[in-house]
């Protein structure tokens, strides 16, 4: 249990998707002009990461990894399909984004209207794919850890995008040098935020 909470906190603050690995930067830069839309996209990302990463974990452990097929038959014990993982992961992500979109449209139309335009964008959000690939690399021992890792990564991403959106709202009133306006100052502010987040490194629970 402590391990699960530890992974959760670590994936929010120490291994933050935006500030430590620069994942999901495209939508982070494109959709951070105001806090409200940033919030919508962040929640959609948490939603999709929390579903896709555990599904990919099960697929990886029971179909793709070396010896994973041995539950079917002893003869398959030395089959290693892990080279297929990229294509399977991206297919699963694209598929789940579609399913999530349809389910939300059917059962929660209000939420669908809020998230609507962001959902399809998430299929190519690097943070979602990155979380699946990190899950494969870090070799978690059980699905509880994978869940806490995926929720934590999503929450960390949400924190990042809300922070930059709030700062950009204020920045639009300040007198930034003309060549630095827009993209340039956003990168530099993100860098400064990342330095602040580095103070969490070494945090253990």
């Amino acid at each position, binding site marked *: 249990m402590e391990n699960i909470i530890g992974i959760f906190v670590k994936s929010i603050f120490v291994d933050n998707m935006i*500030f*430590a*690995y*620069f*994942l*999901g*930067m*495209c939508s982070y*830069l*494109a959709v951070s002009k105001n806090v409200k839309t940033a919030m919508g996209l962040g929640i959609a990302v948490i939603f999709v990461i929390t579903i896709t990463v555990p599904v990919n974990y099960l697929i990886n452990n029971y179909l793709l990894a070396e010896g994973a097929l041995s539950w079917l038959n002893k003869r398959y014990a030395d089959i290693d399909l892990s*080279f*297929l*993982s*990229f*294509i399977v*992961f*991206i*297919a699963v992500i*694209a598929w789940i984004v579609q399913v999530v979109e349809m389910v939300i449209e059917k059962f929660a139309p209000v939420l669908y209207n809020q998230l609507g335009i962001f959902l399809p964008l998430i*299929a*190519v*959000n*690097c943070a*979602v*794919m*990155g979380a699946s*690939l*990190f899950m*494969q*690399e870090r070799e978690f021992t059980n699905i509880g850890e994978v869940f806490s890792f995926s929720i934590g990564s999503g929450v960390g991403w949400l924190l990042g995008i809300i922070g930059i959106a709030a700062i950009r709202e204020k920045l639009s009133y300040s007198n930034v*040098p*003309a*060549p*630095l*306006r*827009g*993209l*340039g*100052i*956003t*990168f*530099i502010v*993100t*860098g*400064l935020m*990342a*330095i602040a987040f*580095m103070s969490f490194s070494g945090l253990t629970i």
Partner: protein
Amino acid sequence: MSQKEPLFSAKNIKLFTDPFNSGNPITVLVLGICSALAVTVKLQPAIVMSLSVIIVTGLASFIVSLLRNTIPNRIRIIVQLVVVATLVILVDQILKAFAYEVSKQLSVFVGLIITNCIIMGRIEAFALGNKPLPSLIDGLGNGAAYGMILVTVAFVRELFGAGTLLGYRIVPDAWYLKNGGFYENNGLIILPPMALILLGIIIWIHRIINKSLRDK
């Protein structure tokens, strides 16, 4: 049939050089920052990453452009993803076979080329509406412009962060404080945040030179 266009016609050369200045994928179009800044601590992985991205963008644009009249419009995204993912798997397997050390350093970031927005962006914006050869050139140009930024960032970070370039020592050993000199490596610049700040500075310089790109 129309007259055959030479490979190095003015139009094709412009397709290749445009991404380096006013159509730069990173500093102007804001595409593809995601996957690769984390590999810019040292020059060598950055160069390998750039080459991989150049190959994948070029070939993916080429292949999608060949298929552009047969792909049904509704499922084009998934078809493009499959083409890109296949190419990335090939690159990953080749790296694992011939450059194992580098592929360990790149870890998950080779896989993340799939979700690199430059590739999907160029396919959607260019390859779906153009002939294979111009698409190939456009893909290669965009990949190269992206690689140029990566290599620039990595050059600064390795030079000031470790005093080496490609593993060769540039700052002499005798200059270091521990050997009685005056110099110390900049520890801050090898931390992740400095990659972002360096990129901000590159954009700043680019927009000082090219006034038409400035935000209003």
